[in-house]
C-alpha cells in the first residue's frame, strides 16, 4: 500500500544574483512498512526534498500525497530527525520530548508519562533531567528519536541522522533505528532516510533511490533484497554487489554531468 507519493517535485532557490535549480521533476513513491534511503552527491537537493516531504519547504511545482491526500504543511503523522539533533538547549531531555506534545494539547501528566516511556525506549531514562549540553552526540540523537516517536508518527524522516556521530555510536544507533522500524507494536513503520554513505544506505534500506548532482533528479534505484538482520551479511559478496550498483549509478551520472559541462 502506497503511503507517500512524491510527484514531479521541482524547486529552485533564488539568491540575490541568480537562480539555483535544486530539484528537477522528482517522482517516486514509498510503501507502508518500507525503509527507503535517498543517496546522492552533496548539494543534490536530497535534504531539501526531505524538507518538502515534511512540509517545512514548499515546492515550486509538483505535490506530495499522503494516503492520497495533498500534504503541504507540517503534520505530526510525518515527523523528522535532524542531522544536528535540533534539541532546544534550554530544555532537559524530558522537556524536549514534551514540547511537541504540549503543542498538540496533551495534558501535563500524560505528556510526562509519554516522554519518560519514550526516553526509556531509547535507553535514556536515567538522563531525563539532563540538559543537551551535558549529553554526548549519540545521546542527543536518542533524545531526537524519542521526541519524534512520542508523536506516534506513521512516517519518520531522517536527515543524515548519523553523519555527525563517531562510527561506533552510529553503528549502535543504526541498529536501534532498525529495531524501532521492525517493532510491530509501534505505529512508526515507514522510514525515509537521507544519507551520503552508500554502505549505510544498503545496510538499512529496502530500496536505495539514487539522485543526480544538482539539480537533483532520480537517476536510478537499487532494491536491497538481503535478509534481515543484515549484520551477518556485511562481509557478503551480495552486500558489496548492491553497494557497487549504487556507486556505479552515482559515478555514471557524475561523469555524464562533467561531460555535459
Amino acid at each position, binding site marked *: 500500500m502506497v503511503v507517500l507519493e512524491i510527484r514531479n517535485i521541482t524547486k529552485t532557490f533564488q539568491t540575490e544574483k541568480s537562480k539555483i535549480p535544486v530539484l528537477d521533476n522528482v517522482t517516486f513513491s514509498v510503501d507502508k512498512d518500507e525503509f527507503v534511503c535517498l543517496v546522492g552527491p552533496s548539494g543534490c537537493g536530497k535534504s531539501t526534498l526531505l524538507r518538502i516531504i515534511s512540509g517545512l519547504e514548499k515546492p515550486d511545482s509538483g505535490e506530495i500525497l499522503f494516503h492520497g491526500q495533498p500534504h503541504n504543511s507540517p503534520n505530526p503523522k510525518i515527523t523528522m530527525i535532524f542531522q544536528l539533533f535540533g534539541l532546544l538547549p534550554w530544555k532537559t531531555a524530558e522537556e524536549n520530548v514534551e*514540547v511537541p506534545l*504540549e*503543542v498538540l494539547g496533551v495534558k501535563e501528566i500524560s505528556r510526562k508519562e509519554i516522554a519518560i516511556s519514550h526516553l526509556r525506549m531509547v535507553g535514556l531514562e536515567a538522563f531525563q533531567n539532563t540538559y543537551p549540553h551535558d549529553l554526548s552526540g549519540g545521546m542527543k540523537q536518542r533524545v531526537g528519536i524519542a521526541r519524534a516517536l512520542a508523536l506516534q508518527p506513521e512516517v519518520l524522516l531522517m536527515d543524515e541522522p548519523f553523519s555527525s556521530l563517531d562510527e561506533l555510536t552510529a553503528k549502535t544507533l543504526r541498529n536501534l533505528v532498525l529495531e524501532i522500524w521492525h517493532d510491530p507494536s509501534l505505529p512508526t513503520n515507514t522510514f525515509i532516510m537521507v544519507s551520503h554513505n552508500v554502505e549505510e544506505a544498503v545496510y538499512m534500506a529496502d530500496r536505495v533511490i539514487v539522485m543526480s548532482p544538482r539539480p537533483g533528479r532520480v537517476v536510478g534505484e537499487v532494491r536491497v533484497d538481503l535478509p534481515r538482520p543484515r549484520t551477518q551479511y556485511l562481509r557478503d559478496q551480495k552486500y558489496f554487489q548492491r553497494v557497487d550498483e549504487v556507486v556505479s549509478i552515482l559515478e555514471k551520472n557524475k561523469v555524464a554531468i562533467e561531460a555535459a559541462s
Partner: protein
Amino acid sequence: MELSAILLLFTSMAWAIFFGVVGAIKGIPTNITESAKSFGLTGSRYTRHVVLPAIVPALISGATLAWCDGWFFMIAAEYVVYQGSTYSVPGLGSYLAEAAYVYQDLNLSIVLLVLITAIVLFINFLTWHRLMERTSAGTYKPAIRIGLSGIGHLGEAAPRMLHLGDRIHTPKSLILASKWLKRYTRQEKIVAFAVCLVAIFFITFFLVGQMPSLEAFRQAFADPEFAQLPVYIGLTMGRLAVAYIISLGIALGMGVLAAEHKKFAAIFYPIYDIGQAVPILALFPVFFVAFSRVFGGAFGLELTAILVLVLDMIWYMFLNVVSAVKSIPSEMKEVGQLFGLKGLKRITHLVIPAILPAIVTGSLLSWGTGWNTIIFAEYMPYETQLTQGQPLTLPGLGSYLDRTGYLPPPKGNPIRLLFLLGVIAAIVLLMEGLVWKRLLRKFEKYQVEV
C-alpha cells in the same frame, strides 16, 4: 580649557581603538599563526603580512566607535561650568549648550541638534562606511568584526557597528562579551589593574597637588550631604533600572520584529542608524528645555534624565537582540516549525531562551553606557530662568559626583571626587561579578551548538 576638552575627548576615544586592536591581535586564528611560522614569516614580515591586515578592520571600527564616543562627549567637553563660572570653547557643542541653557531657544536647539546628527551621519557615510567596505572583504574574523551589509538606506553608516545584516551567523554580542569577560588572563588583568592604580595616583597628584594629609581626608568626608550617599546610590540605581527596563522592553520588541520580518527591519534599521548617530548628550539640553516648559524644572529634569538614559542604553540591546535572533540556527527554527511552535509559544519556548545570553551581554553594555551618561543626566548646572538662577539637580550619585567635581570648596573636593568615582567603579564591578557573569555562566549551556 581647549587642552582639557581635547584630553577628555582623547580619553573617551582611545579605549575603543585600544581594545579593538588588542582584540583583533588576540583573534588571529591559531591555524594562521602556525602556518605563518611554518613558512618562516617572522619579525617584520609577520607584522606586515599577518598582524597589520588583522588589525586594520579593528582599527577602523575602533576609530568609528571612538569618533562616535567623541560626539557623545562633545557638549561635556566644550561647555563646562566649574566652580560657578562657565568655561566654553567655540564649537557646535558649546553653541548648542548656549542655545538651550542661556537663550532657551527650543527651535534653535532642535535645528542645531538636527545639524549635528546630519554631520555625524554624513561623515560616517563618507568615511568610515567606505573604509569599512574596503577592508572587511577578505579578512578573517577579527575579535570585533566590522562588516557591512544592507541595513536600509543609511544602514551602513551606523556607528558602534556590528553585523546587522543577513550575513550574521555567529552571535557577535557573545564575542563582545567574551572580550569583556573571558579574553584576558589573570596576568593581563593584574597588569591592567596596576596601570589603573598608577593612573589614579597621577590623577590624585595633579588634582591635589601633593599627597593628601589626614586632615584633608577628614575635610573631604565632613560634607553633611555625604551621609546621604546610600540614598543617592539607591536613587541613581533606580533611575538606571527604570531606563534599563524600558530599553529592554522596547529593544526586545523592536529587535525580534526587525530580525524576523523584513518590513519591520526596513522601518527599524534606519531608526537605529539615526538614533545611534545622535550624540546623546546633545539631546539633553533640547529635551530639558522642552520638558521643563510642560512639567516644570525638577520633574522635567527627571523625565529628561530617564529619556536620555533610555536613548543611550537601548541601542546596544537592540543590536544584540537582532544579531542573536538572526543567529538562531535554521535547524532550530525548523524544529519549531515542524512541531507547530507558533506565536507566543514560539517566542517563549524558542526565541527568548535562544537570545538570553545576548540579552545579558546587551545588559552589561547598556548598564556600562548608562553609568557613563547618568553623571551628566542628573545635573543641570547652568543657572537659567528656568532653574530660578540655581543649578538644578536630581538627588543621586551622578549629581553628587558633579557637584563634588565642579563646585567650589567645601562642596567641591578632589578626594571625595575620587572616592565617589571609586564607588561607581565598585558598583559596576560588583554588578558584573554578581549579576552578569553569573547569568552568563548560567546561560552558557543555552548556547546552541552548530
